[in-house]
């Protein structure tokens, strides 16, 4: 009797650990049909639109999108050159750039797909309990030949993630100090890098697919 209970307990605990270890929110599986059919080789990343009060947010994120996308196996158009071309065509603000017709984008940039990113949070804010630099981004990948949506995703990163917990007055002082240090050292850039990587990781659930240049690319038969 005792032995049976012990075995069941161990089995139940093991099952619980297995589930918790891979904890993700209950998300529906993304339908990759359009994405696989499109099979983009090259990606045009438009300068991100920005809802935060930090003006530099657009370029803090834009400077760091090439890395995860390229390592995922895509050709990424040079972001600074792209920005320059938009400006010379009279589109100076990311909102205007995002409104450009996909046919026009395809004609000028010649990319298979375009990534539209929106920044919902970027910067260091003082909060009573802790200051944190936070960056939240969301992105949508569009086929430039068809205008069809291939993928969308989002991610968030915060400098508070790895901060240790202290107690009492220490927390308040640390919060203010963190805000000053983070703002002064352009922590936004570092955190933006983490958020961008998270959003554009092919290894996460419902993430982007590996591109043709990656050794982990899965060609659709």
């Amino acid at each position: 009797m005792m032995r049976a209970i012990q075995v069941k307990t161990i089995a139940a605990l093991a099952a619980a650990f297995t589930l918790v270890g891979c904890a993700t929110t209950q998300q529906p599986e993304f339908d990759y049909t359009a994405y696989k059919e499109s099979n983009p080789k090259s990606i045009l990343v438009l300068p991100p639109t920005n809802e935060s009060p930090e003006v530099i947010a657009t370029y803090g994120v834009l400077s760091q999108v090439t890395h995860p996308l390229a390592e995922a196996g895509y050709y990424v158009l040079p972001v600074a050159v792209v920005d320059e071309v938009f400006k010379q065509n009279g589109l100076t603000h990311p909102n205007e750039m995002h409104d450009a017709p996909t046919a026009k984008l395809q004609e000028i940039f010649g990319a298979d797909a375009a990534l539209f990113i929106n920044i919902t949070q970027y910067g260091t804010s003082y909060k009573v309990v802790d200051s944190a630099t936070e960056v939240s981004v969301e992105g949508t990948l569009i086929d430039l030949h068809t205008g069809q949506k291939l993928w969308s995703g989002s991610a968030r990163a915060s400098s508070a993630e790895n901060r240790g917990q202290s107690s009492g007055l220490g927390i308040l002082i640390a919060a203010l100090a963190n805000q000053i240090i983070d703002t002064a050292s352009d922590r936004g850039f570092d955190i933006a890098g983490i958020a961008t990587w998270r959003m554009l990781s092919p290894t996460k659930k419902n993430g982007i697919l590996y591109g043709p240049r990656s050794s982990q690319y899965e060609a659709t038969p």
Partner: protein
Amino acid sequence: MFSTKIKKIALLTLTAACLGLTGCATQKAAPMYNWDSYEAEVYTYFKGDDTSAQEQLATLEKNLQEAEQKGQELPPGYRAHMGLLYASTGQMDQFKQALEAEKQHFPESTSFMNFLLNNFAKLQNEGQK
């Protein structure tokens, strides 16, 4: 105290649990490209601080040499970004060479590189801020 059978079951379930946990670990493959300078230099370019185009080019040139020595690939867009800087300083031969090199290493860029080569005059004027 426990029978061999129970120990065996316990071991199997614990092993299964461990595999379940480690199954979430991602394999980190070796990077495909050399990322030493590119992102920081692109950010510097966008920030428009005191770092001149020539200084930015010097950093990117150095990274290019180092990558070549190590047999490492430069990221997509790296050479074209250098081309942009060359155009902004009026070095149009280097601009063309950089874009041709980008095309050679990344044929996916051909359409866009040709567009830039055909419209370089505008880039040159705009770059001179």
